[in-house]
């Protein structure tokens, strides 16, 4: 179980970590709101229910007191009737001479709303007098009736019975009355002799019933009445009790002292108030089932749940709004940082939202700016590095070329061809002049062409006009920029690879022209040409072509062009075996002035 809980908690944590901040804020706030509302609702509801129960109990206590007062008055009234009958009538009459019927009738008439009958019996059960005037049922022995026995058992007290059907007098209207009998032993005077008799006042049970019915209509729960032993005298559902359809905890309640207590009866929790009625020992018992203390409990619960639900809905939407307000600046900042991840350093970093987020944004922006500066520095550094590499590549030319030319001059001097040697030295001087170009990497195409011409004049001396050269350069491109010493090595390659192997006259064509805004210079020979595989290898890094001549590989020229002008420029080789080869130089068309200025500045910075 513990492990399961741990797993669950870790699952929740992971889940939270994968969700957006807006979601987390929204869900967390909503959860807290829901818990708070439920707690608050439950507390208030509990408080309310306790308060309602207390109110119901308090109200019923007052009702019980009122019933007690009414019962007290009612019973005193009945006892007063009994006393009047005894002390004012029976005790003053000699029954041998005067019957008490008249006085009894007067008293009965005055109180007949609450009385069924008043009767007096001798010790042997013989009727002395009764009101209203009636005949005792034939064969009836009153001395066996409960009220008679009780009155004669405790002669000093007035006895109250439980409700019963009066079984005394003949009647012809089929009516039977439920009565509560108030009986007492009395002294009868007959011919001056005293004897014991029994006075019976039968109170109409409906009097008690009405008294309780009125109170029950007002009370929460119900109020009933028992005698001191717990036998029911009045109950609002008396007939159901008599029919055993329902049950009541009357014996247990009647055994309790006066006051308030709680009980559980037939699975129902109830509050019970007990109050003893004076003289009789009867018990007024108020029962408030807990559910009756809240007559609208279901409605109240429904109402409470609805209110809580309403607040939860409002809170949820407010939380959504608040979380959006909080999360949006963070999300925007996050998006900016995501752009940074994609190396978009030129984007603006979002600065907005609360103070902390603004501060964070500003800090990130500062960091980005620093990064950007660092990147620029790195780019400049790279540029410089590239330039250095270029310089190194360029420097590779000189030893090869110089060796070859000097070799030719030596050969001429050895052959006493001083004039030619001088011309070659002059041409060599021109070559070096252009090679140096005051340290510039970029020269005009015109200069580059002059450089090639100087070179060719040297080579033509060496090869004794074994090949012919045709140069056709568009005048429009003569003043455009080129990297120096790119044409000469190509021509050199053409001479070494193509012309040397030629049996007949070799031919080298140099065409310069402009196409689609770029400059193209084609060096075409009519040599042996190359197979396609060789062409493919010539410009690759792992070229293993055996080098000859000046030793400047086409790859070096290609690299120099691409390093300086970009990947889209460089050399292209078109060759067919036995047909010849064309090396095409592709350069951007940039006027020399424009590029030389820029390069001048770079040199100054350097």
């Amino acid at each position, binding site marked *: 179980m513990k492990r399961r809980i741990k797993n669950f908690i870790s699952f929740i944590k992971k889940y939270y970590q994968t969700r957006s901040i*807006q*979601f987390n804020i929204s869900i967390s706030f909503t959860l807290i709101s829901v818990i708070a509302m439920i707690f608050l609702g439950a507390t208030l509801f509990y408080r309310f229910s306790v308060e309602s129960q207390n109110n119901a109990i308090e109200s019923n206590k007052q009702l019980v007191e009122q019933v007690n007062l009414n019962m007290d008055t009612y019973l005193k009234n009945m006892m007063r009737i009994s006393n009047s009958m005894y002390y004012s009538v029976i005790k003053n009459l000699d029954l041998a001479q005067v019957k008490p019927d008249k006085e009894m009738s007067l008293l009965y008439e005055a109180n007949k709303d609450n009385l069924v009958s008043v009767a007096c019996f001798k010790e042997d059960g013989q009727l002395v007098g009764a009101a209203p005037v009636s005949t005792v*049922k034939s064969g009836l022995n009153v001395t066996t009736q409960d009220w008679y026995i009780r009155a004669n058992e405790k002669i000093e007290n007035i006895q109250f019975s439980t*409700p*019963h*059907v009066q*079984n005394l007098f003949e*009647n012809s209207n*089929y*009516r*039977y009355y*439920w009565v509560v009998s108030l009986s007492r032993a009395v002294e009868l005077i007959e011919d001056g002799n005293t004897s014991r008799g029994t006075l019976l006042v039968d109170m109409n*049970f*409906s009097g008690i*019933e009405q008294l309780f*019915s009125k109170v029950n209509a007002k009370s929460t729960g119900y109020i009933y009445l028992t005698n001191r032993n717990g036998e029911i005298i009045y109950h609002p*559902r*008396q*007939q*159901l009790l*008599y*029919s055993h*359809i329902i049950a009541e905890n009357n014996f247990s309640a009647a055994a309790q002292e006066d006051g308030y207590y709680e009980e559980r009866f037939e699975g129902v929790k109830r509050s019970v108030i007990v109050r003893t009625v004076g003289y009789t020992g009867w018990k007024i018992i108020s029962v408030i089932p807990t559910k009756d203390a809240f007559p609208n409990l279901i*409605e109240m619960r*429904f*109402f409470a749940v*609805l*209110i809580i*639900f*309403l607040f939860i*809905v*409002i809170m949820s*939407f407010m939380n*959504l709004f608040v979380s*959006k307000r909080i999360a949006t600046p963070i999300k925007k900042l996050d998006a900016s940082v995501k752009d940074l991840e994609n190396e978009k350093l030129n984007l603006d970093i979002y600065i907005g939202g609360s103070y902390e987020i603004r501060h964070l944004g500003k800090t990130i922006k500062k960091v980005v700016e620093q990064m950007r500066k660092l990147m620029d520095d790195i780019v400049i550094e790279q540029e410089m590095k590239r330039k250095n590499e270029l310089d190194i590549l360029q420097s590779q030319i000189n030893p090869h070329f110089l060796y070859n030319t000097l070799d030719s001059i030596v050969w001429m001097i050895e052959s006493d061809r001083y004039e030619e040697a001088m011309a070659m030295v002059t041409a060599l001087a021109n070559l070096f002049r252009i090679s140096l170009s005051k340290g510039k990497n970029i020269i005009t195409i015109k200069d580059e062409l002059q450089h090639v011409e100087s070179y060719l004049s040297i080579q033509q001396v060496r090869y004794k006009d074994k090949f012919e050269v045709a140069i056709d350069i568009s005048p429009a491109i003569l003043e455009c920029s080129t990297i120096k010493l790119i044409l000469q090595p190509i021509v050199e390659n053409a001479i070494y690879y193509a012309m040397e192997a030629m049996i007949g006259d070799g031919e080298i064509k140099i065409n310069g022209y402009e196409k689609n805004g770029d400059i193209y210079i084609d060096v075409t020979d009519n040599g042996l040409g190359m197979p396609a595989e060789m062409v493919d290898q010539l410009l690759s890094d792992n070229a293993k072509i055996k080098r000859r001549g000046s030793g400047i590989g086409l790859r070096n020229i290609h690299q120099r062009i691409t390093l300086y002008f970009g990947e889209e420029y460089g050399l292209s080789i078109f060759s067919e075996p036995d047909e010849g080869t064309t090396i095409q130089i592709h350069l951007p068309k940039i006027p020399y002035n424009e590029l030389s200025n820029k390069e001048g500045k770079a040199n100054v910075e350097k």
Partner: protein
Amino acid sequence: MWKNKPVLITLFFGLLALITLILYWSIISKPEARKSTNISVIVYGNNPERWTALKKGIEQAASDMDVNVNFLIMSKENDPAEQRATIERAIEDNAKGLLIAATDSSEMADYIKRISEEIPVVMVETTALGVAKYNYISVDNYVMGRKLGAAITKDNSKDTTICIYAPNRQRQSVEERLTGLSDKLEEDGFNLVRWEMGKSDMNEDLFIEAKLKQSYLKGSEKKIAIAALDNNSLELIVGKVENILSTNEFLETVTANPKIYGIGNTDKIVHYLDKGYIEQIVFQNEFNMGYLGMETLLNKMHKTVRRPNVDISFSIVNKETMYLPENERLLFPIVR
């Protein structure tokens, strides 16, 4: 989530409006309109006093369960057509459930089966043939008949002829009581005579009078006891006997007061018992019958769990035992 902003806002205000409406409704609505369930109780016979206890039980249930009850009796003792018309009227008057004591178990059977499909019906006291046991609240009439038989056989010697007057045998309850009584008397070896009106007997009063005069002719050595199996016939028998006994001319011809037994508990019957005109009565707890009948009907209407089948109890009392607390509580239900 906020991509569906209009939907969310609509949902929010929709929910808010719904909750506000429910709150408003729950605040203003009052429970006074609750007492709208109308139940009609249609019983047989034209004697309202005969149904006092049943009616009290029904009224108690109506008060406990918050329903309106319309109690209807017939203008004649036994008229199935009238009872059918009364039921029709009750349904037209918007009764939501019916509690019926059938005047004729056989004649009413098809009709009650048909209306049971339209409206919840529970039978009390007397059922219609074919109605399921759980829709019928009654005592075990056969056992009650046997109990009466046992009281008669205990009180009388075997040479007593037991005359049984049971005119309302069209009612299942009476028929079952008669079977129970006859079975018990025959088992105990008593001689039975059934007073049954023939087609030539046009008047019930005259028929009873004739039967009584025949039974009590002077010089007859026969001892007889009379048993009546429902309220009306018991009241009729006692009334007639008292009438005959009070007639001087007839008094001389009578050998002895006849012993009368019966089933019933109208005020008149109880009074006759108290006066000693009836030896013993068996009576069913009709208060319970009314209360439980209503409870069963409401359970059926609301399809709620019903109280497990409760058999209605019955008691047997004589003049001496009728005032015992347990008996007087049932014989004289407390009037509210």
